[in-house]
């Protein structure tokens, strides 16, 4: 709750910071301070020391999962600010506004992590989406960025329309927005409730770019300025998943048998389309867009299996995926050439960057001793525990094998091809944070319980 209030206020603070100072370093400093405060306030809230206590009348309910998820989101954003904050200056003149928009997105994520009524879900999703439309088009003179923003805006508003229609149908059949009330009497699915549920399934699948609602993703991620793609593809995407699972677990958990096959088919399609299309990409940025679809397929396992292990795994997956992808994107931003050839010879010219980005890529591919492996393991074992979708587990393992191909293509370019990569100047902070990310990826890969144990701490 406190994180929600602070992030909204800090967004306004960021807006005004742009008026009083033109210095990029000062604005970045204010943003990083704000985010650190946000993290501290959220941890305090987690431990039961709330700074302000507001009665939301059951509209927002924070539990351990929400707090833990928000901690991961704020932590990942903090690393993202340290790594890529200075690159935002190259996008355009309005640095303070970009940070302000990111803080507003974080406010939306705080809502989405704790909503208990469909109304709050809608508000949260919109508060996340609208700043994203602006960030996508923030490179105003670039035609591709404009195209991406318009495409994202039109399709995003359309899917929000679908979501509202779904909410209306559910309200029509249940007479309430509250997730608990909707979940309580749902023994059978009536046509009205079923229609609403399917519309919600479709619109949430759109927000997390699951197939067949993924068509916007490659164009938008490719067209948006790379710094913002990094944020969109990681933190915002996992927030969408958190909302997705929270919604379906509370409201439609009791009728899971009736929609599980739908979710399983969406998952299978997402895995296949994401992985197979990623193989054919020539640009690393576009490959990462498809890779984010493929990883979304794995996160969908939490929805399909809908058990404790799945939710736990989603939190873990959020951390593992965000850390590794932020690392890869941060290095990609520094490169001039976004094709695979752009990485040629990076191992010789920048050994430290090459090593850290390799660890991130290994984690994304799911190689043991990295966080990505344990994340995939959690997801697959959740599905095995559920027991009804073993075919999906087999498909998941096969797709993980396909993904090795395109991640290793980058590693191959880094170490086994000769070339002179053009890399922008890299600060010491950047190197330190990259090493930190690599260490975290390996650490959580070896001791996954260090992260998930927090979920069972009771203060």
């Amino acid at each position: 709750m406190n994180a929600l209030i602070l992030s909204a206020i800090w967004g306004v603070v960021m807006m005004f910071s742009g008026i009083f100072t033109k210095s990029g370093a000062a604005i970045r400093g204010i943003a990083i301070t704000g985010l650190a405060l946000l993290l501290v306030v959220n941890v305090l809230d987690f431990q039961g020391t709330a700074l302000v206590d507001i009665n939301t009348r059951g509209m927002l309910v924070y539990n351990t999962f929400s707090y833990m998820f928000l901690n991961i989101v704020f932590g990942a954003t903090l690393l993202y600010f340290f790594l890529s904050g200075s690159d935002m200056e190259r996008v355009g003149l309005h640095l303070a506004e970009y940070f302000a928009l990111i803080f507003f997105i974080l406010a939306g994520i705080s809502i989405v992590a704790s909503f208990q009524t469909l109304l709050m879900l809608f508000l949260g999703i919109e508060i996340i989406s609208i700043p994203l439309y602006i960030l996508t088009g923030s490179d105003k003179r670039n035609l591709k960025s404009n195209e991406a923003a318009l495409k994202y805006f039109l399709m995003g508003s359309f899917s929000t329309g679908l979501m509202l229609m779904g909410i209306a149908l559910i309200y029509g059949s249940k007479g309430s927005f509250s997730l608990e009330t909707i979940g309580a009497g749902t023994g059978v699915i009536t046509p009205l409730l079923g229609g609403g549920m399917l519309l919600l399934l479709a619109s949430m699948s759109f927000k997390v770019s699951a197939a067949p609602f993924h068509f916007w993703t490659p164009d938008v991620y490719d067209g948006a300025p790379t710094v913002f793609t990094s944020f969109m593809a990681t933190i915002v995407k996992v927030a969408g998943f958190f909302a997705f699972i929270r919604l379906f677990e509370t409201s439609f958990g009791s009728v899971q048998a009736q929609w599980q096959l739908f979710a399983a088919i969406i998952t299978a399609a997402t895995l296949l389309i994401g992985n197979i299309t990623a193989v054919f990409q020539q640009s690393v940025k576009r490959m990462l867009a498809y890779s984010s679809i493929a990883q979304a397929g794995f996160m969908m396992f939490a929805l399909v299996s809908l058990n404790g292990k799945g939710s736990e795994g989603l939190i873990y997956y959020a951390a593992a995926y965000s850390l590794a992808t932020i690392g890869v994107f941060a290095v990609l931003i520094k490169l001039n050439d976004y094709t695979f050839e752009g990485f040629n010879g990076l191992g010789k010219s920048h050994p430290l960057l090459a090593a850290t980005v390799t660890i991130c890529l290994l984690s994304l591919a799911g190689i043991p001793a990295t966080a990505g492996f344990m994340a995939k393991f959690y997801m697959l074992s959740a599905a095995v525990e559920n027991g009804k979708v073993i075919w999906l587990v087999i498909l998941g393992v096969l797709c993980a094998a396909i993904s090795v191909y395109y991640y290793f293509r980058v590693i191959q370019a880094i170490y086994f091809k000769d070339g002179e990569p053009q890399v922008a100047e890299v600060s010491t902070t950047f190197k330190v944070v990259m090493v930190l990310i690599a260490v975290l990826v390996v650490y959580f890969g070896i001791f996954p319980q260090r992260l998930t144990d927090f979920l069972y701490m009771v203060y």
Partner: protein
Amino acid sequence: MIQYLLQVTNTHSADSSFWYLPVGVQFIFAIVFVAAMMGLTHFLGPKRKTSDKLETFASGIKTHGDARQPMAIKYFLVAILFVLFDVEVIFFYPYAVNFKSLGWDGFMAVLMFVAFFLAGFIYIIKKGALNWED
């Protein structure tokens, strides 16, 4: 049939899609009406095809130049900001009606609303969105 339309029998639960039959009927009516009207005008209306009709109509003035030219957005900015603040003022009306019953809590909430509102106003002035002269 008549019992479906008037919904006189009440054996269906409140959750049933049965109650939405009138909505369905209205949908069908809307589609049939639009299709019929468009079809009728298409078949019955007289057609005189001339090349003039294919040209862009610009209030009788001859068209010139390209539609995609840069133009000042000052007027647009002022107009859109006016709409924004105008809509925000609308929120005061329900508050004014419930002023007494909402008490101090309501007052605090509205005060917060006004504070955000003013912050936005100061922001656009400082950003120079309302400067008419360059």
